[in-house]
């Protein structure tokens, strides 16, 4: 039984590596990008195999879905087939191959000795011990929004910074397409399902796998489907609403973190009886920010030019 499971693991890993190498080695990136999307989906399956369901949802939605979508949209404008594809046998290439080999040997040795010398102490015990005080019962959500909330605040700030960068220096995407009959029919069904699913994943993130980031990605997918049909929600909501929707994640976090300082004078230390509600408030605002930020990555700068944001 266990040998069969190991065989499945070996096959999954082998296919993963083959997909990654093919994505980079095929002649044209028109084939390479779908291979990369398949790589992402297989990785999501592997996360589920390795007892990481939160990561599986996030990888399928963000890593495979949204990243794949971004790459596909860029297919039209960036060169995808190189003429001199096989780099000539040159000193640089040999050097890089040698570096690759050395790194692989070093990593294997480090990983092996790290695993061997593990003394058995695991952080999961510390997290489980303090989980009842955190306000939620999903340990990953507790770590993300309570124990390591500062990291999540900075992550939302990174997302905001990326969107600001895209809106200021990025080239405009072509405008929303004309609605295809099949696509609009599909959207009539899929967008409500996506909205309900996103809301559910956000709510369920407190106790079961899920959370703000997965929900934000699902809702961003709904916004992108709307844009493909010609309803540009991201830019149709007006400038002030745009600013609020993009920054509400970071601002909400800072406000909550500052407000609890009145209680305990430590930034982001929630009082225990309020922890669940505060986490919910932060998650809702973070979901809205993530949704609009990810949808903005697919949008075109406003008509007045980048400076009018």
């Amino acid at each position: 039984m266990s040998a069969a499971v190991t065989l499945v693991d070996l096959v999954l890993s082998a296919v993963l590596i083959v997909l990654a190498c093919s994505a980079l080695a095929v002649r044209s990136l028109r084939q390479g990008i779908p291979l990369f999307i398949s790589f992402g989906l297989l990785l999501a399956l592997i996360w589920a195999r390795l007892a990481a369901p939160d990561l599986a949802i996030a990888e399928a939605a963000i890593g495979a879905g949204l990243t794949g979508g971004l790459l596909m949209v860029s297919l039209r404008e960036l060169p995808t087939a190189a003429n001199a594809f096989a780099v000539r046998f040159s000193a640089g290439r040999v050097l890089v191959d040698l570096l690759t080999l050395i790194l692989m040997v070093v990593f294997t040795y480090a990983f092996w000795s790290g695993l061997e010398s593990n003394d058995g102490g695991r952080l999961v015990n510390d997290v489980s011990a303090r989980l009842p005080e955190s306000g939620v019962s999903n340990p990953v959500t507790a770590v993300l929004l309570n124990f390591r909330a500062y990291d999540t605040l900075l992550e939302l700030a990174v997302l905001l910074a990326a969107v600001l960068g895209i809106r200021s220096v990025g080239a405009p995407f072509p405008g929303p397409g004309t609605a295809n009959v099949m696509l609009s029919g599909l959207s009539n069904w899929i967008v409500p399902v996506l909205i309900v699913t996103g809301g559910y994943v956000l709510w369920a993130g407190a106790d079961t796998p899920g959370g703000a980031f997965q929900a934000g990605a699902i809702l961003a997918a709904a916004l992108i489907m709307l844009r493909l049909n010609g309803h540009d929600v991201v830019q149709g909501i007006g400038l002030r609403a745009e600013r609020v929707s993009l920054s509400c994640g970071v601002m909400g976090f800072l406000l909550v973190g500052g407000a609890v300082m009145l209680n305990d004078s430590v930034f982001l230390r929630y009082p225990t009886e309020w922890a669940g509600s505060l986490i919910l408030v932060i998650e809702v605002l973070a979901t809205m920010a993530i949704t609009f930020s990810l949808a903005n990555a697919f949008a075109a700068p406003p008509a007045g030019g980048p400076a009018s944001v």
Partner: protein
Amino acid sequence: MIEVIAGFLILTGAGFFIAGSIGLLRLPDLCCRLHALTKVDNLGLGLTLIGITLLEGSVVFGLKALLTWLLVMVSGAASAHLIANFDSRQTE
């Protein structure tokens, strides 16, 4: 007994998936490949989900599996249409 039926269904579903993958690789034309993929993956996924539902044994799980199957079928059909549409416009 239930496990035997479930195992048989899952293996049949896997067989359909293999057939679809071979079709993707070996069929000559874009439309032929889309046909193979969508037809075969709907049936393959459906059989696999029925098999898993038999193993799980709960009605709620069966409803979720049914919803998943419907969503995959709908999005597969729409994507296949869009791809074929785009391809036919390309070759005009």
